[in-house]
């Protein structure tokens, strides 16, 4: 089958590199997708005090009107909490701040703080969502960094047409048969695999590190940077957001349980100790 021409667009957003690929899509469609990513990223970042997420965090203790997209993400977060048995918990903001991750890494390395164990609260205990509004318990805070990119990649894939791929900082979603007809060729754990209507994501403690023991992947059971015996997990799943949830959960359950967990929840997986 001959290769179909692929339109591609690369840009920086969400504090990382983003790439869009589409067969039979216009340049304008890719640029509109770029604009969508930047706009939504500005609304969901915790690093800007006037973002919708920061306003929601600041409203803790009372019901706050939220946009349909934030509502959808919060509902997805609740689902992620349930399917990961609590290991993917977006109520992680206070732990992130406690380990010193208070600003984008592009603005400088965080200051390492003294690590103190403080298990996260159960997400359903601190977050309630109803149509058009949500309420956060006083003292709790939400960080959507562990789920938003996969969720956004899934929506981009759908918006770019039936044969497209969106990669937001390594969390990607591929739809259709790709340029050659067998699927989108994607690098995973040093190999190339073909993805068709699937997503892939990587969770790692090798990046975003500072101060020796500090990194951005918090274990909700301790509130501390995770140390499980696995350093990196890449996963292929039915969607980008599902891959992100499974990769993070597999890394947190550690090398003993990760193979069985991935066998039950992933379509392909790379485990690196």
């Amino acid at each position, binding site marked *: 089958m001959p290769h179909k021409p692929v339109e591609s667009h690369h840009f920086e957003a969400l504090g990382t590199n983003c790439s869009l690929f589409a067969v039979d899509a216009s340049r304008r469609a890719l640029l509109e997708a770029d604009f969508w990513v930047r706009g939504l990223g500005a609304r969901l970042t915790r690093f800007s005090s006037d973002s919708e997420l920061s306003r929601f965090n600041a409203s803790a203790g009372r019901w706050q009107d939220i946009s349909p997209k934030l509502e959808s993400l919060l509902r997805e977060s609740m689902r992620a909490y349930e399917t990961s048995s609590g290991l993917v918990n977006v109520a992680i903001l206070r732990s992130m701040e406690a380990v010193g991750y208070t600003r984008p890494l592009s603005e400088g390395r965080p200051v390492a703080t003294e690590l103190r164990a403080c298990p996260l609260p159960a997400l359903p205990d601190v977050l309630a969502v109803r149509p058009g509004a949500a309420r956060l318990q006083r003292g709790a805070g939400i960080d959507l960094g562990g789920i938003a990119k996969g969720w956004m990649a899934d929506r981009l894939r759908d918006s770019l047409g039936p044969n497209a791929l969106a990669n937001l900082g*390594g969390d990607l979603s591929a739809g259709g048969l790709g340029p050659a007809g067998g699927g989108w060729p994607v690098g995973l754990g040093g190999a190339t695999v*073909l993805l068709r209507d699937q997503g892939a994501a990587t969770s790692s403690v090798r990046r975003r590190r500072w101060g020796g023991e500090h990194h951005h992947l918090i274990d909700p059971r301790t509130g501390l940077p995770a140390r499980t015996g696995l350093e990196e997990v*890449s996963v*292929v799943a039915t969607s980008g957001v599902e891959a992100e949830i499974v990769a993070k959960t597999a890394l947190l359950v550690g090398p003993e349980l990760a193979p069985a967990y991935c066998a*039950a929840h992933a379509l392909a997986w790379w485990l690196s100790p």
Partner: protein
Amino acid sequence: MRAAILKAGATLLTVAATALSALYVTSHLKNPAAPLQPAVLSTSRASVVSAPGGTLTLGPSVQPSSAQPVTSTYAS
């Protein structure tokens, strides 16, 4: 007389319900060979590739390729 009829009726009803239940259960035996739900990928259907730095496992719905990848999943 009426009490005896009621007792007999209740006894008959109990015996009939027990017999029908036993009949239903024996005709709907659990199939011990039924697949697990939700399905768990058998390791025999997955291909495991050892590579420098880790282990890659591919399920039957993900095919390897020799094509040049257009992009990769990575930690950011």
